[in-house]
């Protein structure tokens, strides 16, 4: 199984209680805004701590509250691509890309920076500051940064939502290639039915 998740987390008056297990490929977490999809990604990434439950990715246990296991985010090796790119504003594109790559153990890396740069077509952006990038350019760099950290799986939180129609198509193609060529498991959050149908191998409805 790529993702085996059973988490409970109280957030204000609202409680997340979800269990799912999905195989390889791209899994769409589909649901309306405010249904807690992003919180589920944050729980898996380790940015939120579940009240109870377990999380396994690719057979590796990240959280098991019964055994007191709760790996910190930096030990989970999951790539997280955010809605807004969230690049480091004080580092040029090149330094953003290699941030996680430099921190990764050599045996954890499975992509070299030159490979990622060619894969994403971002050679011409390397010396730019994030502030000067368009939404689509920033999202490519963010995807490259996540891949270069050597992740076991990718978490993507509505990565197309801040893009216009043309840019959306470009990034969709990139995501399809990650799914089909790099064959890395992806958990993909969206509220857009067309996007979900086009990209998903597996579907999970969150309500």
């Amino acid at each position, binding site marked *: 199984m790529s993702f085996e998740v059973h988490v409970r987390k109280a957030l204000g008056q609202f409680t997340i209680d979800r269990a799912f297990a999905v195989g390889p490929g791209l899994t769409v977490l589909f649901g309306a805004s405010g249904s807690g999809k992003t919180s589920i990604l944050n729980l898996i990434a380790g940015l939120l701590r579940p009240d109870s439950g377990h999380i396994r990715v690719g057979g590796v246990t990240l959280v098991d509250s019964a055994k007191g296991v709760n790996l*910190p985010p*930096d030990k989970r090796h999951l790539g997280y691509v955010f809605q807004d790119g*969230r690049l480091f*504003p004080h580092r040029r594109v090149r330094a953003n890309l290699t*941030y*996680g790559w430099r921190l990764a153990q050599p045996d954890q890396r499975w992509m070299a920076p030159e490979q990622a740069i060619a894969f994403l077509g971002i050679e011409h952006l390397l010396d730019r*500051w994030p502030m000067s990038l368009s939404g689509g350019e920033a999202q490519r760099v963010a995807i490259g940064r996540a891949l270069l*950290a050597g992740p076991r799986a990718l978490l993507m939180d509505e990565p197309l939502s801040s893009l216009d129609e043309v840019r959306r198509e470009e990034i969709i193609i990139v995501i399809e290639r990650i799914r089909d060529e790099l064959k890395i498991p992806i958990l993909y959050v969206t509220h857009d039915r067309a996007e979900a149908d086009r990209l998903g191998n597996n579907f999970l409805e969150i309500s």
Partner: protein
Amino acid sequence: MLTAEEWGIVGLSLKVSIVAVVLTLPIAFALAYLLARGRFPGKALVDGLIHLPLVVPPVVTGWLLLLAFGRNGPIGMFLEQWFGVTVIFRWTGAAIASAVMALPLMVRAVRLSIEAVDRRLEGVARTLGAGAWRAFASVTLPLSLPGIIAALVLGFARAIGEFGATITFVSNIPGETRTLPLAIYGALQVPGSDREVVRLAIVSVALSLLAIVASEWISRRSAGSRPGHVL
């Protein structure tokens, strides 16, 4: 030009101010971080205490320092017994007075810049493999650099102009605690020393101006092509 004695006053002022600001910076940063990011009971009280030197008459601050650091004061007794050190009537005492007066301004400057840093960026760094400390050092610290530079400048300007708390705490001793403002005040009391007053006043203004220009230059260099303003 300045006389040898006046150069000595300028040198002492620089020493007192630089020591005060450099030693206060880590404390100011820690307090600013606590106030910007921390959630704890009594936060408003801590905030208020830090800001006291900004609103209390400096002479009262000086008197309180005298009580704390005096021979019979809690800190003074401790320093005397354990290190054989006394700061009363010493340049180190002048530096402490300047540091206390500069602290609120420095905490404010750093706090504003820490609050302006997007906290989620540290989360990004964590998912990319950075431990908590590295995420802080590689994201929050550099992004709050403009505030740190602003704190150094404001603190230095405040320290080099410090008068009331200093004269109350460590008196006006030539060569030891007679900094620029104290020397100007002293010269004003002596008839016929107008020229000395003018010279020292010009030096005071020039030093403060220099600090601000230098900080703008540093921040522009460190910001690269990104826009950045310190003050």
